[in-house]
């Protein structure tokens, strides 16, 4: 079990990483139902800014 867990965690992380952008897009679009269109627009602009920083650090 102890050797299997990191393997599964790694696979899940890889799967989430590769689907990261469409998952965020879905969250922003569907999330409009919860927080409204103006917050979605704000989140989109913040996300654009964050990505540039993320790929420099990691």
């Amino acid at each position, binding site marked *: 079990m102890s050797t299997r867990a990191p393997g599964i965690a790694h696979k899940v992380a890889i799967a989430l990483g*590769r689907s*990261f952008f469409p998952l965020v*897009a879905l969250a*922003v679009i*569907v999330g*409009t*139902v919860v927080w409204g*269109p103006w917050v*979605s*627009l704000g989140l989109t602009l913040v996300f654009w800014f964050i990505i540039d920083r993320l790929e420099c650090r990691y």
Partner: protein
Amino acid sequence: MGTPCFAPARGAVLAHREDIHLVIYHLLSLLAYAAAFWLYLHPEVAGIEGPWSRAAFVGAAAIMLGWISGIDVGVVFHNHTHKKIFRYEWLNRWFGRIWSVSGGWPSYYWWYAHVIVHHSNLLGPTDWTLPKRKPDGSSEGMYRYSLLHWPWRYVPHLWHDFRAGRGGPQVRRQALVELFYFLALWSIPFWIDPVMALGLWVLPQWIGNVLIVGPGMYAQHAGCVPRSEARPFSHSNTYVSGFFNLTMFNIGYHVEHHDYPQVHWSDLPRFHEEMKAHLIAKQAHVVPFGYYRASRLLSPKLTHDQEARARAEFMAQHPDYLLAQHPDYLDHAEEAAPAVLLPHGAAR
């Protein structure tokens, strides 16, 4: 039923198990489009109460849809054009058709532009997919290239090539057939609501091609020169940001991709490690960030000083890839990257 592309394992549909991530990416992208369309058509559910809040929703959705569509066609579908993801040709053809349509491309046209024009003539005079070169050898600016390449340059070039039969006599007929399928699929949102189609279909495709694919293509070969014996890896830049390559299906390993396009996208990080000594010895340009940072560095600046600093950061070699740090790698300088490096017996 078509014939299998390769000898298939019983029950297997995918040619490579990692390709399931490409399929998931595209299906999630289509789901995002469907969600945006549905909310646009049911504004009361999303708190859209007037033209301004509708504009805010369309703005947010179009940016996100454009972003993922640019990656979907320029990276995810791109992998399929080099190595078909299914074992059945009819499935490759039809999944390809529904794959690139949300990126504003007929699949065959994108394959033609990328494989026949770009890969076969990399940085050569007939590679019209890349930025134009000025008489002094420098490239046009990133903004100009990104704004003009899709669809304004692609359409006349494709028209000319298809009419001339570049790539073979079957090209013209195939182009017509694929244009028919593309228009049939691409027009679907217009039949539902033409205004919605402009805001949540055409606008995202413009954003995807102009703001995502354009700068990406520019960054892949910025500051590069055609390959030569002295500089065999100078045709592309390699980006090794872990976050970037995780979320972009390893497209950052671009030197490796151009020299060995048949290496599966999921094998590129391992392949990169195997080639590392050769890349360092022959001074391939390797940078620690990804295309987003590169695009910012390559975009026009207000002053010459800012421009010079940005260029210097872009051109600076990744510290781990400086030849001075690895004098022992000089042994590799005279060797060609051997074919035995290729994983799974892939052909160069």
